[in-house]
């Protein structure tokens, strides 16, 4: 993705806007659609991914010279799976409520293609500093997209944001928004809006 010399700032910001993993690359859609029914779940998932992706990128970038081409994928997966298990155990031990809310989706970060994708496309070919910036940028972009999606869905589906009542009492919650179809609808509109803004900015 970044063949020429790109500035360090760019390495970080590209994940937030122009290469946003959710809105542009459409990677990691499984957790994006599944856990964003409340803002707090979205934020927790985003932070779990931030930790996993950054840690994995650090390790993969450090060992990239020793890992032979043929076994790189299994090595990446083992590294990612290790960090995911760390997150899972940590959440279970320290934040059991969040762990309960995220349910099976924390272990499933292992197969979040965004994380493996960044290892393959970036961390395995770039020095440590750039890999960290890339991982942080991508995770922040991922988290922001999830948070935005989660806030819209929670607002329309339950009338609350971060479990705080926002809508007036008379508001009838749109139950569909917190069910899976609501995720698809909201994401569709978000991507459309994102592209529209990009078009406007270009012209």
């Amino acid at each position, binding site marked *: 993705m970044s063949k020429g010399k790109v500035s360090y700032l760019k390495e970080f910001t590209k994940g937030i806007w122009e290469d946003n993993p959710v809105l542009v690359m459409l990677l990691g859609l499984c957790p994006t659609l599944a856990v964003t*029914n*409340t803002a707090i*779940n979205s934020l927790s998932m985003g932070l779990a991914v931030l930790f996993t992706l950054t840690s994995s990128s650090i390790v993969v970038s450090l*060992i990239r010279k*020793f*890992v*032979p081409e*043929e*076994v790189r994928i*299994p*090595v990446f997966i*083992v*590294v990612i*799976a*290790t960090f995911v*298990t*760390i997150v899972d*155990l*940590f959440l*279970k*031990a*320290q934040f*059991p409520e969040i762990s309960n*809310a995220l*349910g099976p989706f924390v272990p499933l970060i292992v197969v979040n293609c965004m994380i493996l994708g960044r290892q393959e496309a970036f961390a395995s070919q770039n020095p440590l500093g750039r890999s960290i910036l890339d991982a942080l940028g991508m995770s922040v972009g991922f988290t922001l997209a999830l948070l935005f999606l989660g806030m819209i869905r929670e607002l329309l*589906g*339950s009338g609350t944001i971060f479990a705080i009542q926002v809508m007036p009492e008379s508001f009838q919650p749109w*139950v569909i928004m*917190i*069910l899976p179809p609501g995720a698809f609808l909201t994401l569709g509109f978000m991507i459309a809006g994102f592209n529209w803004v990009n078009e406007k900015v270009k012209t």
Partner: protein
Amino acid sequence: MKSAKLIIVLTVVTILAGLSLSLLNAWAEPKIEKHRMKVRNNAVKKVLPNVAKFEKDTINGSTFFIGKNDSNQIVGVSFIAKGKGYQSDIRIMVGMDTSLTNLYGAKILEQAETPGLGSKISEDPTRDDPNWFMQQFQDLKLDNQYINYIKSGQPKKNKAEIKAITGATISSKSVVNIINETVKDYKNYTNFAK
């Protein structure tokens, strides 16, 4: 020699991964267990009134928690009722008097129902909102009736009626059925008046 390197790299990586995880697990395991106990103990205290301490007791293969007050009198018994919900297994801590005719309260221990709908069954009953689903299970008379659920209208306390959660009728019904079935079962063979 190329393949030897592949094997070595993979082996080293997996050993390091396994090692770090087992270290972390040694730290996390007791904490997770402690939390599980805390959830259970809190649940017992929540479903029985004025409980100061409780003892675990096994009767006919079922586990009961006998709650006692400060002066060592039995205030009630609690037990875990489990069964199928809409899409997951539900475990409920139920508190009753020793004759199993008064339901003091119930609390969901575990569930994985539809987030935002069925999952509402487990929302915290400590909030004194009478519309809170689990709040409705407090102080129901089950002497010659069982819990009923209604979909609309005002539930009648003396008829042990529960209003189902809108959009989550099956989960609500499951909670009612799980409690009813378990109580029915235990009524036949348990006697706590000792």
